[in-house]
């Protein structure tokens, strides 16, 4: 089984400041890692994902994340946030299996609030 911990339920930040949203996971098998964003009253949208290869992954809207296997972390970063980045961010993992559905296990989410 897998579990995901998002340490911060809320992160307030001023516009144009950098931000890091933390994600740690636990799994007995290798996993794929994802970050999803949920804007108010909308569904989830994929920001970025790590499947293999380079541990630094770049996604949409200027976000990036770094996979750290030794620390079992997949923190999300953006060097300069915008008001429009205000949203809920979810980290998720999926066990690497063959022949089975890629079920996602989600963290509890981090609310990013960007203010002027």
């Amino acid at each position, binding site marked *: 089984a897998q579990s*995901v911990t*998002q340490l911060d*339920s809320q992160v307030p930040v001023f516009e144009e400041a950098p931000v890091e949203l933390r994600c740690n996971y636990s799994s007995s098998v290798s996993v*794929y890692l*994802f970050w*999803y964003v949920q804007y108010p009253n*909308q*569904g*989830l*949208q*994929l920001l970025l*994902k790590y*499947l293999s290869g380079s541990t630094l992954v770049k996604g949409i809207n200027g976000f990036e994340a770094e996979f750290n296997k030794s620390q079992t972390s997949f923190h999300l970063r953006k060097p300069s946030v915008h008001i429009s980045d205000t949203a809920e961010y*979810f980290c998720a993992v*999926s066990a690497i299996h063959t022949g*089975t*559905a*890629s*079920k*996602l*296990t*989600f*963290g*509890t*989410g981090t609310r990013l609030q960007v203010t002027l």
Partner: protein
Amino acid sequence: TAGITQAPTSQILAAGRSMTLRCTQDMRHNAMYWYRQDLGLGLRLIHYSNTAGTTGKGEVPDGYSVSRANTDDFPLTLASAVPSQTSVYFCASRLAGSDTQYFGPGTRLTVL
């Protein structure tokens, strides 16, 4: 393209009543999923389907049932709703061979 549609957008339901939440995708994705989203708990998997004709239980399946008669539709049924099923429900789908799930806009359900 429409992607994934869910209906209704929101619903208030009396406890004990039954309800079917509809999910339709037009991407010909093989796998489909139902999640519920609750404050402080994130999203939890209710049921899933690898392909038409098959279904499986997720993390929180009790009180819910699903069917997958064809590729496009994956309805979620609450046979006898209880207040603890008040939540926002998201349907998702995934193409075989891909690891990315695509989510619908959600259904907000309130059980009183």
